[in-house]
């Protein structure tokens, strides 16, 4: 299945530079958020929003066409 993914801030480095943090990924059907992070080799703590909802846990099963935003939360700057 295809999902649309956007990585924010330094997470853009987990995709090829040419993608500028946005890509369409092809994953096995019934892949979870944990599978997605593992596919991207992201080991750090991140927040994942699926179709704008940040409440989904790591075991949430993704669906074809999902819009997935991956970001981190830093207080300050």
């Amino acid at each position, binding site marked *: 299945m295809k999902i649309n993914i956007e990585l924010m*801030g330094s997470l853009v480095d987990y995709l090829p530079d040419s993608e500028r943090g946005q890509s369409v990924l092809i994953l096995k059907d019934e892949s979870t958020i944990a599978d997605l992070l593992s596919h991207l080799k992201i080991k750090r703590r991140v927040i994942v929003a699926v179709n704008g909802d940040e409440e989904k846990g790591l075991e949430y099963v993704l669906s074809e066409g999902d819009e997935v935003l991956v970001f981190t939360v830093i207080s300050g700057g």
Partner: protein
Amino acid sequence: MSYGYTGKILHVNLTTSEIKVEEPEEQFYRTYMGGSAMGMHYVLKETPAGVEPLSPDNVLALCTGVVTGTPISGQSRLSSVAKSPLTGCIGDAQGGGYFPAEMKFSGFDAVIIKGKSPKPVYLWMHHGEAELRDAGHLWGMTTGDAEDKLKEELEDKRIEVLQIGPAGENLVRFAALISMSNRANGRTGMGAVMGSKNLKAVVVRGKQKPTIANPEKFKELQKLGKTNLEPTGMDDFGKYGTPDVTSPQNKSGGLPTYNFNSGTFEKHEEINGKTLYDSHLRGHERDEQNRFGRDTCFSCQIKCKRVSQIDEGPYKTDAKYGGPEYETLATFGSYCGISNMDAIIHANALCNMYGMDTISCGATISWAMECWAEGKLTSEDTGGIELKYGSAEAMVKMTEMIAKREGFGKILAEGSQKASEIIGRGTEDYLITSKGQEAPAHMPQVKRSLSVIYAANPFGADHESSEHDPAYKAYPERMEQIGLTNPQEKLALNEEMMRFAMVTQHLSSAVDSLSVCAFIFGASFQLYDANQLVEVVNAVTGWDTDITEILAVGERRLNMLRAFNSREGIGRESDTLPKKMFKRPLEGGRSDGYVLDEKEWEAALEDYYRLCDWDVKTGHPSLKKMESLGLDWVVAENEALSHVVT
């Protein structure tokens, strides 16, 4: 024997040239732990009520903490406190680099400065000794030139220098203290206080490394810093530095744009962390930014500081003046509608050369740009400079004119709030200040609990005084360590979010008292969590402190800051937000239409007061609270407080 700290506090009276050394008991260090809390002890004891910020009677305290100078990430920070010439309230500014650790090595934990020297001097603290030396030949020099000159005449390249630039000499109300020519104790005008005392610099050098009580445990904690790097993402944070947050802020609708009228900047990618790293850090042409474009503080593995260099053109910039943080990219960038990275890098360098706070400087210019857009300012006011949004040329020109107090820069050097009082014509409607301090680059309309901290913080709007709203949900295990277990919905402004604001404010306040880095130690994303901060303090000092005691240190410092304002007759009436945040909905992006509801916001402020045990009507700390924190002496020794703290 003292572990971690030297046990010596230097007192300097610049009027009489008297220098004394105080050796407080261990209990003193345990009560305050250093930094801002320790500095407030002296400011409250030694300044008279109603002190003029730029008078000899103001006291400037420069304090390290009990772990400063030990070889672990995030410990080399210095707190500076004094009454602020920008706000008329208490002032407080934190800064890092190598100066704080070297000051400890020089044999002193802190220096308390009062009086005014009849002529420019610098303070030379070295190997347990201190002396005042003539600085007439340094007066007027930029920070880089003065630092080079001091290294030459003291014949030691390893001295560290904390100094004012020409802006501090010119009493720009948001002048900063600068070390390494690129690190700033930026906020609340501490540079103007130092300038008013004719003190050009504090220069330090020494070899007195702090003794560590439990070296084995300390070694474990050093290793933990390495283990924590990847899971916390602090390795990526080090690569891109604070500018890493620029585009995520924009995505959430929280990147202040056009003087806080929008939270979305269409050109955010031109001023974000990746663009800065890929195309503007020193060494980027050869892909060697890691080696030449990143810098660090004493013993810190993160290397989050930026180094940029521009070799030619109108924005030619020397690498010694560092590179912009996120705040600077926003204030000189999106606040002003500017996406010219070279111009922002140059404005940042000007602030470091002349010694000014990049937040207040950029935000004062963005305020003037809105006034221009609204027809409240014209070229007659500005001497022909067209202060249009997006004009990098005008922004850079005005930055230099402010530092030199030239032309219209003389008015902007007063800060935006005082400038609006001088100009009138309704320009106050465009201010983005709380207590007269310009707002940093996080939006109260988007981070609602932060809105109350911006207003109620004793030294004005500040972004490092509490955790920001999204952190409550994002880091539940870490929040639990400080008793926060009930995260709320986005944009909530209820009692639980006020509890989140207050408790995390206490931890941040302890971080500023221990004088450690808010990116390395804290309750959410940081390299070390709150419990690990406790372990570091215990390993260094040999104490048996716990998180409750650490939070109480933070609360003690917060109440001392608050009590200072109370003594000066400043209470709830000053705990306000800029009018526009209640009246003008944001435009565009994720935060389109966001505006604060005044009634809801006032109720939240009252919830916050109640949780703090401050009087809801007046905003002053209660006597009961002061006593419970061991601060009854503050009330007893400050007569003006006995009428308001009850």
